[in-house]
């Protein structure tokens, strides 16, 4: 605990103390200007990292946000004599709003389309700033006096401290945000948007909020930028800056506050490195050494393929040779940026900080903070007495895909507190039915009622909030997150502290309560010992059980298990039976879709059989097994061409015969 405090927090404090103390040692105004730029870029890149790193989308609008913020602050100061604090708040707030408005349509898109949408926004902004001459003074540029801070003059050194202080505050707020439910939601929606929605978290909402927040940081930094340079030109905030900012995030390392500041340092200092040949030679020499070490190490340990290891070495070697050949390096600036970006993307996909933190993690083993003791299961998942009432009711429900009637007029009643089996041949409409009930598909016709209240369908978040939780046939875990975090994402009703207080770090207590609740659920599925294991590293069986724990975190009225035993070996099937029985004891209604008939007969009180999108039979497992229609369509007769007697039990009853 203490070690963690000293190493992790200590490093952060040291960073800001050193940064803040630098002007006392360095007196050159030029160096001070560079340091100020570094702090401002730090804020911009932390904001950009929200979309590029956490949401995993290439955002090309951050330069425009910086520009909008800068111009708004400049205009507010020149025309209305606004002071520094108000100007920062104005620019930040305005860009948050613009970011939200841009994100609403743009984040309906993915990947390259999203990148293009943000790129066109940058083009639009640059043109508007240029053409609205009455407001922005157009291409002639806007002169801005540095305004007063609370009635005092601000000299260059004080302004640098102001920027550093703001960077520190943003760093703190961001750390608080990322270690809260918000940070988990950002992680989760990148790993599996479908599951994020199905757990009631709301992918789209979080994406828009994240983008708006990051844009707001860009805008606030824009105000500082305006007061730093005191002269603004529209063409500053164009594609060139867009690429530079992107380079900063990727080079520094995505999803890392340290990465953003390291990236900011490189982006702020790099152009100046280029103007001094000896410095640039040293820089490219270091880059070459780094590429050589990491490339050779990767090759020796057989962790990287030849291209990944050799390409960055070749590129940085080109830089070294070029630095001795070229007479004026500044002319080659764009080419050098491009080469650097290429070698980073190929050789250090996690950026400098990703590379460094892997090494640091090996040097200093910092244990994660202790977990609280698990909460009482009764608190997390209160037991309910089954009252025999109707929980889920489907009347004439259908879903068509073109001419294919995947679900064709299904009537189905699920009573509270039961385990209701749903079986049928592949393609009989079970999965489609489940997808309609859990809101992934809109029904083509018919009624869907939960506790008598109609559900319209087509909205997974709404279905989740109405009390329906599910697991997925093809696992939809948040693979990069720990088992504990997977469950915590889904916890229902645990997150009440509003965003501003979370930013101030007041969400800790809630966080501990959430961990205790999640641990209780992990214990229920016998995974408490794996709480800190990444979901992707769990064994296949454990992954299936984790999905069940995650669904239970919704404290659902109705739990839908979609083929939980698929691919499980016999010992794990036994564990699964035990888990489902425990869930049943808590009075939770379960719909179980399964092909293992022994699992179904063992657990279910009632079984519904689907074929061709219609219900062909319903009854107790024993009745179903005798039903002629079910035998033909689903169970199949005993093997007529079975191998010689004694050689093998017929595969028709796979796990029933010992």
């Amino acid at each position: 605990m203490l070690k963690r405090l000293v190493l992790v927090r200590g490093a952060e404090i040291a960073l800001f103390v050193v940064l803040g103390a630098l002007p006392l040692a360095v007196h050159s105004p030029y160096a001070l200007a560079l340091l100020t730029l570094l702090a401002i870029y730090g804020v911009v890149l932390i904001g950009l990292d929200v979309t590029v790193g956490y949401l995993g989308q290439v955002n090309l609008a951050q330069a425009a946000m910086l520009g909008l913020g800068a111009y708004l602050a400049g205009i507010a100061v020149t025309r209305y004599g606004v002071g520094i604090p108000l100007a920062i708040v104005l620019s930040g707030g305005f860009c948050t709003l613009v970011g939200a408005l841009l994100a609403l349509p743009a984040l309906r898109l993915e990947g390259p389309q999203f990148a293009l949408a943000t790129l066109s926004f940058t083009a639009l902004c640059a043109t508007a700033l240029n053409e609205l001459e009455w407001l922005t003074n157009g291409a002639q540029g806007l002169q801005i006096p540095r305004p007063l801070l609370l009635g005092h003059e601000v000299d260059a050194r004080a302004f640098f401290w102001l920027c550093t202080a703001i960077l520190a505050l943003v760093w703190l707020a961001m750390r608080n945000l990322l270690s809260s439910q918000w940070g988990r939601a950002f992680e989760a929606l990148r790993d599996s948007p479908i599951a994020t929605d199905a757990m009631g978290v709301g992918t789209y909402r979080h994406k828009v909020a994240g983008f708006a927040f990051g844009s707001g940081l860009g805008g606030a930094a824009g105000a500082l930028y305006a007061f730093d340079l005191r002269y603004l030109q529209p063409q500053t905030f164009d594609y060139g800056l867009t690429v530079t900012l992107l380079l900063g995030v990727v080079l520094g390392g995505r999803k890392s506050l340290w990465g953003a500041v390291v990236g900011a340092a490189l982006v702020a200092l790099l152009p100046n490195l280029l103007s001094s040949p000896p410095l640039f030679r040293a820089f490219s020499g270091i880059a070459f050494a780094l590429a050589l070490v990491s490339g050779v190490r990767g090759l020796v340990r057989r962790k990287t393929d030849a291209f990944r290891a050799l390409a960055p070495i070749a590129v940085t070697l080109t830089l070294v040779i070029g630095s001795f050949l070229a007479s004026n390096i500044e002319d080659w600036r764009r080419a050098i940026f491009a080469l650097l970006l290429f070698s980073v993307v190929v050789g250090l996909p996690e950026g400098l900080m990703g590379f460094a933190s892997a090494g640091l993690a090996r040097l200093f083993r910092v244990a994660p903070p202790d977990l609280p003791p698990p909460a009482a299961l009764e608190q997390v998942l209160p037991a309910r007495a089954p009252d025999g009432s109707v929980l889920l009711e489907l009347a004439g429900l259908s879903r068509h895909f073109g001419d294919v009637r995947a679900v064709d007029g299904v009537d189905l009643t699920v009573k509270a507190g039961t385990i209701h089996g749903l079986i049928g041949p592949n393609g009989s409409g079970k999965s489609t039915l489940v997808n309609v009930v859990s809101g992934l598909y809109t029904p083509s016709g018919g009624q869907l009622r939960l506790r008598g209240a109609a559900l319209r369908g087509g909205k997974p978040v709404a279905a989740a909030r109405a009390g329906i939780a599910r697991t997925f046939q093809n696992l939809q875990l948040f693979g990069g997150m720990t088992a504990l975090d997977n469950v915590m994402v889904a916890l229902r009703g645990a997150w009440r502290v509003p965003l501003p207080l979370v930013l101030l770090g007041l969400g800790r207590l809630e966080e501990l309560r959430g961990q205790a609740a999640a641990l209780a659920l992990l214990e229920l599925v016998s995974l408490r010992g794996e709480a800190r294991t990444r979901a992707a590293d769990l064994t296949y069986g454990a992954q299936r059980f984790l999905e069940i724990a995650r669904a239970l975190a919704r404290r659902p009225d109705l739990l839908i298990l979609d083929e939980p035993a698929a691919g499980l070996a016999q010992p794990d099937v036994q564990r699964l039976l035990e888990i489902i029985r425990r869930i049943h004891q808590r009075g939770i209604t379960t719909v179980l879709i399964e092909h293992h008939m022994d699992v179904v007969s063992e657990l279910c009180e009632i079984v519904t059989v689907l074929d061709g999108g219609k219900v062909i039979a319903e009854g107790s497992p024993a009745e179903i097994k005798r039903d002629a229609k079910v035998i033909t369509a689903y169970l199949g007769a005993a093997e007529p061409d079975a191998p010689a007697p004694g050689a093998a039990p017929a595969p028709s009853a796979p796990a029933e015969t010992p």
Partner: protein
Amino acid sequence: MLTVTDLHAGYGLSEVLVGASLEVKPGTIVALIGANGAGKTTTMRAISGTLAPTRGQVRLAGSRVDGLGAARIARLGLAHAPEGRKVFGPLSTEDNLLLGAFRWLPHLFGFHRQARQALARVYDLFPRLAERRAQLAGTLSGGEQQMLAIGRALMARPKIMLLDEPSMGLAPVIVQEVFRTIRRLKAEGMTMLLVEQFASAALGVADHVYVMERGRVAVSGTPDELRRDPRVLAAYLG
């Protein structure tokens, strides 16, 4: 046909296989069973080259193939029908199959004669696929997709076929059909390595069985021997 010696492989820092060895003789079916996480699928992937082994040897018909990469190994006559089917969803059933016949490139006047013959043979084996030849593979039912995955593997006329969990997520009636197909292929002389959770079903078709535990082979023998082994019986045959 296939000899695997001391195979090591893993993902990132975690080593899943720690010295697996097995042998598949021509014309036989060898089954690989074991608990989840024992390394069955990883063994398959390390053999077919979709995962590079870190140590050990894989010999296909006498020559070493480990480290060659999945594409080269496939060309040498090893077909892998992976876990979870992995059909090409946006392509038609027939196109999926024809992609399996990568050994015979289409020529100017249409598809190669060998590819057409292979296609006819697969349609003969799975009449359902012939009915669905124009349908997009992604819209097929789970059972049909499994047949397609097996059919696609057969298209290259492989020397040996790796079948990973062919019964996963399938209705009992389809599972029976899949195992009928496996028996028929065996009768035609196909060599197969089979990973299967339905241990009893796997034992029913196999000539030899390996039980994997924690990344290596724990027990091996004929199905009859394993059925008499009380430990195997308790742990895997329920």
